[in-house]
């Protein structure tokens, strides 16, 4: 499940359910279109309803981070669930995408 909206200059991208290799390609294509579309100052990934993510999700996040960075837009992660937070901590991704 993906939902996104721009509010007060923030592109909020909410991904729910389970994020693994089986859904990554579809999600990447949708997100690239939205991120490249502009019209915001910051990207926030809302993971409050994401129950599962493996390292495929880390690769997906890093790819979207590069896209946003090329447009000089910062990226942050909002409320990851405990299992997702554990994967993100191991990956070290919080050093470039802070948890808010």
């Amino acid at each position, binding site marked *: 499940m993906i939902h996104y909206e721009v509010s007060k200059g923030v592109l909020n991208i909410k991904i729910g359910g*389970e994020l*693994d*290799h*089986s859904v*990554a390609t579809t999600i*990447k294509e949708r997100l690239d279109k939205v991120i490249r579309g502009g019209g915001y100052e910051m990207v926030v990934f809302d993971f409050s309803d994401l129950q*599962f993510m*493996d*390292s*495929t999700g*880390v*690769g*997906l996040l*890093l*790819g979207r981070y590069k896209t946003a960075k090329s447009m000089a837009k910062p990226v942050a992660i909002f409320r990851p669930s*405990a*299992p997702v937070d*554990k*994967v993100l901590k*191991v*990956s070290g991704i919080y050093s470039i995408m802070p948890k808010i």
Partner: protein
Amino acid sequence: MDKIVLIVKALPENECFARSVIAAYATRLNPSMEEVSDIKTAVSEAVTNAIVHAYNNDAEKDIRLTASIEGNTLWVSVEDTGVGIPNIVEAMKDFYTTKPSEERSGLGFTIMGTFMSTLQVQSVVGEGTTVVMSKVIG
């Protein structure tokens, strides 16, 4: 010794099925929610590696998962008959990937090793790879 065997085709859709089956089996040891998540994540990494790297997304190939319980320890093996890993030490380094263009993070083995109690990888080029992991519960 109690044991289950699951053979799935190398389809991305089977990643969720495989990790859910192994996690369901592990509930016999009354694991915590975190332990269940750790097992699911590690199994998902191993199965994804088999699909993406060993079989290069050839959905006709088989992945064989075996799980057993010894005392308070869950043992899981994930076996493929794919291309094999030429250099296991290099493959197990953080962020090492042979497919950067596909946005693979190169963290699969790192996560397996971190989330499980033990991790062993055996591989023969041209014959396949077997990943054996254990998780002590409690």
